């Protein structure tokens, strides 16, 4: 991709966003998704918080259909593709597919909190933590300290 635009979504509104890191200065867009806002009946508090986060990022703000707005923005800038960052929300994949039907989309992975081999047993937190905790503390050059589990912690 020579002239990409960046699609910024609500899981990556900070400087660690790998699309912003990889393409500083490229035109970027965030879309307030009309359907999502109405279906989830989001309060003004939530939208205002998002808006204030976005005002500190170099990004154009739009309101409408998520995929259509990204494609319109890409056309406006004569882009040959869209770069974004991976998201967990399943809505992301549906939008990505709709955009990718018309323009190449590159999805960059953010740095993981902890790298763990797959497959990982996620049946209960304790099973995940048995694998994650030693790996995390190894990063800090320390052995995992014991943490007593207390039921009302979660």
């Amino acid at each position: 991709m020579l002239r990409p635009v960046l699609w910024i979504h609500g899981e990556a509104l900070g400087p660690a966003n790998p699309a912003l890191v990889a393409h500083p200065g490229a035109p970027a867009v965030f879309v307030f998704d009309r359907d999502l806002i109405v279906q989830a009946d989001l309060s003004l508090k939530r939208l205002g918080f998002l808006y204030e986060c976005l005002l500190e990022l170099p990004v154009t703000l739009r309101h409408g259909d998520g995929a259509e707005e990204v494609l319109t923005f890409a056309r406006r800038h004569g882009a040959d593709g869209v770069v974004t960052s991976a998201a967990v929300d399943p809505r992301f994949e549906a939008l990505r597919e709709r955009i990718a039907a018309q323009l190449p989309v590159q999805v960059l992975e953010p740095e993981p909190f902890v790298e763990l081999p797959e497959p990982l047993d996620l049946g209960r937190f304790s099973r995940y933590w048995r694998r994650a905790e030693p790996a995390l503390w190894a990063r800090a050059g320390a052995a995992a300290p014991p943490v007593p589990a207390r039921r009302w912690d979660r």
Partner: protein
Amino acid sequence: MRSGDSLPPGDLPRQFASRTELQATLRQLFPEAAGDLSPIRGGRQAAAAALAAIDPGAYGRSRNHLDGAVTRLSPWIRHGVLSLVEVREEVFAWLERSGQPPQAAAKLINELGWRDYWQRLWRQLGDGIWRDREPLKTGHAPEHYANALPADLLEARTGLACMDGFVQELHTTGWLHNHARMWLASYVVHWRRVRWQAGARWFLQHLLDGDPASNNLSWQWVASSFSSKPYLFNRDNLERFSSGRYCRVCRAATDGTCPFDASYEQLQAALLGAPSC
């Protein structure tokens, strides 16, 4: 919005003289969205200030108290303004600066692990996070739970100072302490017998850190569709971790009508049905 803005058609404004002006503009842009702005500000500057103020040691000692040294980083983490990696590194840097042993930061690292765990589960389950992960262990069939939240709860007039206080805080600020979330969720599901999905949707409307995975799976933990037994609490527990702030001003706490003023054995007998297996 400022008249000096010359934006391409359809681009939303980015310049505001004040938060009042921002709020007025948002009301025009999103007329369906209820309420006011939260006193908690979005943005990297506010996030960086909150991150610089964390005290992992105090957090570990006091996090379950409403007045405890919780970080309040969750809204910025949820939207990636702060990454979990960044917070993890800040915690490790704090350990190095303070000369404390790893144990001092273990609880906060553990809590960041919960966030990572919920996200990994969401990736695996997708929209399945809206369905019971396991059968309820409450002794009540799913159809015996109401689909909608009761009006007295939504209007913060249950007459229980704690629950009404939590509802007001949720609606006004968009943030609740984790323990308050658990008490409120338990009250909704087990005392009012409402489906956890109704409560989860309500929280997502208001919580600035509203993340479907963390939120729904925690509601399921309370409800017992993602845990081995339902989460119940009693007055002793709430009074202790809220330093009595609600019970002191609550009529139900003195006139003998507090529904939480009982032992766990009594609450289980009153709220849970016969085991289904």
